[in-house]
């Protein structure tokens, strides 16, 4: 983090899901189709030639209709999906919160899950030892950390998940519709923490179906339409255009 410059850079990134025309979930059926020469695939391009660069410290919202490629874009940036074509360049440690509580083992205690989850996110045991108390404190779980998390409410799971994923200041924070859970008080604390990261120079990407949340938190907004980057610019301008588009197609489609 020496100079300014892009933290994330996508060069003509395309991503293709290759879906079998017939459902071929088993080796047996695969063999049958292979012998008959009837293996056919349907290509579904979830992203098409997306080119963009995000600077250090930017907070970027992503909007678009269902299936426009928002989550796929976040997965590519997180490194979970590899682009079919094009390249991704990324600097620093990424905290991807694509879903709160992924990787939890429901048989283990909250305490054990803190270790497991943080290790999955690429942390070392020693770092976790140091932050353990802070994580428990932020989650507000107190003595519950000693019981198996299968006894937790969904709000508690979300709190624990968020506390672990944000225990270290990430260089890139990726949020996919995750802030709708937990109570209002915890939501405030989450927003405060995100705000602190932002001030400290973390680059943030947010997917949300709530345009007002995007307007409040982001300066810049990306609008995806059928896998393509429809527009990229200041948040107010993009959101206004997006709303006009949605209302326009909404009435035309009669939905």
């Amino acid at each position, binding site marked *: 983090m020496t100079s300014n410059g892009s933290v994330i850079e996508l060069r003509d990134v395309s991503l293709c*899901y*290759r879906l079998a025309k017939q459902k*071929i*979930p*088993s*080796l*047996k059926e*695969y063999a049958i189709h292979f012998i008959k020469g009837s293996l056919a695939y349907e290509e579904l391009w979830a992203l098409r030639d997306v080119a963009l660069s995000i600077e250090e410290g930017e907070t970027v919202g992503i909007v678009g209709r269902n299936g426009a490629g928002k989550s796929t874009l976040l*997965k590519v940036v*997180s*490194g*979970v*999906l*590899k682009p079919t074509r094009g390249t991704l360049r990324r600097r620093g440690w*990424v905290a*991807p919160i*694509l*879903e709160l509580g*992924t*990787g939890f*083992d429901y*048989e*283990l205690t909250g305490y*054990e899950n803190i*270790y*497991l989850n943080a*290790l*999955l*996110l*690429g*942390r*070392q*045991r020693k770092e976790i030892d140091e932050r353990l108390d802070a994580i428990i404190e932020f989650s507000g779980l107190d003595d519950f950390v000693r019981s198996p998390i299968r006894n937790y409410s969904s709000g508690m799971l979300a709190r624990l998940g968020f506390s672990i994923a944000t225990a270290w200041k990430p260089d890139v924070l990726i949020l996919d519709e995750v802030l709708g859970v937990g109570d209002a008080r915890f939501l405030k604390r989450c927003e405060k923490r995100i705000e602190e990261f932002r001030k400290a120079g973390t680059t943030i990407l947010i997917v949300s179906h709530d345009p007002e949340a995007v307007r409040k938190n982001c300066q810049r907004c990306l609008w995806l339409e059928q896998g393509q980057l429809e527009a990229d610019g200041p948040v107010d301008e993009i959101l206004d255009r997006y709303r006009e588009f949605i209302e326009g197609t909404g009435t035309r489609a009669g939905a």
Partner: protein
Amino acid sequence: MIELLRYRDLVRALVVRDLKVRYRRSTIGFLWTMLQPLMTMLVLTMVFSAVFRFDAPNYPVYALAGIMFWNFFNQSVITSMNSLRSNAQLLIKIPVPKAVFPVATVLAGVINLLFAMVPLFVILLVTGHPIRPAVLFLPVAILLAALFTLGAGLLLAPMAVFFYDTIEMIGVLMTLLMYMTPVFYPMDIVPEKYLWVVRFNPIRSVLEVFRDPIYFGKIPPLTHLTVAVSVTAVALIVGVVAFRRSSDRIAFYV
């Protein structure tokens, strides 16, 4: 694969979890790991000495060493396949090197194999089977067995994600493979015309390298050792290459 070093704390945690889950299920879970091969050995000893009637000196030791090896191989491969599939949901949400799961599975298998050594040595003492210095060669033999198994696990684990019936299929193949390997029968009962099947079975050399120091009390002959090392190297290379080629696709199939 080099990324795995950065994730070694995670691998260790997964191994610990694997062992905990295995032993927490039942209070005698830990004892069970030791008892299970012993009981299999008893059954086989009864069957083979009473029904098939062949004379292998101290057959229980021969069978037990074979069963321990096979259990390790079979369980590690099947669990590796399950490990990727059962963590598939996680793999599409968190960018983690996918090889950590099969690697942790095989390591947990090695630890279980070491636990199972305890009853083996008890049997050796009880039956008065000589324990020779050659047992010091066992760490090398276990390392070979582990790398061979890891190769097989890496090759098969992604397939279990792509096709749901792979695990059942491999389960059947494993049984076939077991009968093609002298796990519990001695080589000299194999009829002449089927000998080539056993001879060219790549797993056999890895098994014999493990069993020689225990049963014959000797370091495996260089010819056996060379074959075992080559077979292991090939299995590992094939496994790593196949895994690297397919691991980027895993997230698409979940």
